[in-house]
């Protein structure tokens, strides 16, 4: 870090694969997956807008501690967030993570328009 402290680095595994990618605690999981050497397991997480709005990179965190930034509620509701669903482009690891893709697709949900 800029103040000299170490940025913690964790491993993120997809679909129970034996190995995963490294992801800093300040790095979005989706960025780590995209930048790594191509691997079919990593490619299981889709890439869309990379900015929390489109739902393409929806995943479920099976194991591990993490934080998330603001995600469109059309793709991860508060209930789902509590169950471990997240958008990988808004997901920052706080420990090693195991994730699996949870993309819903275009008919997956009704867009809730707020007033």
């Amino acid at each position, binding site marked *: 870090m800029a103040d000299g402290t170490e940025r913690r680095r964790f491993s993120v595994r997809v679909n129970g694969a034996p190995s995963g990618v490294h992801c800093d605690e300040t790095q979005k999981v989706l960025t780590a997956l995209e930048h790594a050497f191509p691997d079919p397991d990593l490619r299981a997480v*889709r*890439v*869309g*807008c*990379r*900015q*929390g*709005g*489109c739902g*393409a990179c929806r995943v479920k965190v099976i194991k591990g501690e993490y934080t998330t930034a*603001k*995600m*469109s*509620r*059309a793709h991860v509701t508060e209930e789902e967030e509590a169950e471990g669903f997240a958008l990988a482009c808004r997901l920052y690891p706080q420990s090693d993570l195991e994730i699996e893709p949870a993309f819903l697709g*275009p*008919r997956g949900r009704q*867009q*809730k*328009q*707020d007033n």
Partner: protein
Amino acid sequence: MSQEGLLRPGIAQIRVLDMEESITHYVDRIGLNFVSKEADGRVYLKGYDEFHRHSIVLREADTAGIDFFAFKADSQDSVDQYRKRIEEYGLDVDDVPAGEQPGTGGRIGFTVASGHRIELYADMDLSDDAPETHSPFIWREEPHGMRAQRMDHCLLYGPNIDKVEEFFTTVLDFHLPERVDLPDGTLAIWMTVSNKAHDIAFVKHDEPGKLHHLAFFLEDWNEIGHAADVMTRYDISRDVGPTRHGITRGQTIYFFDPSGNRNEVFCGGYTAYKDHPVRVWDHNTVGRGIFYYERQLNEAFLSVVT
């Protein structure tokens, strides 16, 4: 060509997840001018080369996407006449009072068959920051960021594109320079009220009311390259490009705002006239139609929307 009735796209109101990040993106990066933030939290922006008060409105919300897209008319008479025709066609029309957006007159609104809200209005104050008109310089201050001149058009995704085409062409007097027809029906339509290759476009999609992209006009291919430099420098999420569209011939980059709304910067595009035959693309050539150099669609084009 004499233009009467609807003139051009006037206002796009979009939903953003974080207002501060969005202001940085649209003002500092894309190059729009900040006009005002109002008491309800909405932020108003304008391209440096636009005459009227604002063209982009940001509203912070829990989801991304587009609230409405509005066309500016040459007079209130035109709006009133379109209102009659829209109601005769069978759509409900509601009134938005003057002042609901600052410096803006009354608007009418209706929802088209694809699930999108479209509005028409005649009056908006001239901007304090409008282009000069007396022996004008080309700009007062040198353009910044990606140097967007104006909000140019949007591409909307939703069902019932045939009905949307019928409505825009027979009721609102748009003409249709270009389309993509697949064996199972029309996939996409580009329509205009002006000389531009398009002022609005639609792609057939199961979910109603979706935004594919909101586009900003740049000067030329050099400025497109400069915009790409800005995107990398500030780690802006890039979708496709720099490239060219076969459809409209515009040169382009698709990228995403901090809420996942897709933006476009583009230049060029052919000049469209009502008496030109329609350009038609088919399922064998749609790759080149959308991405002229790549000659294939990417997965995101048909699926990533907000």
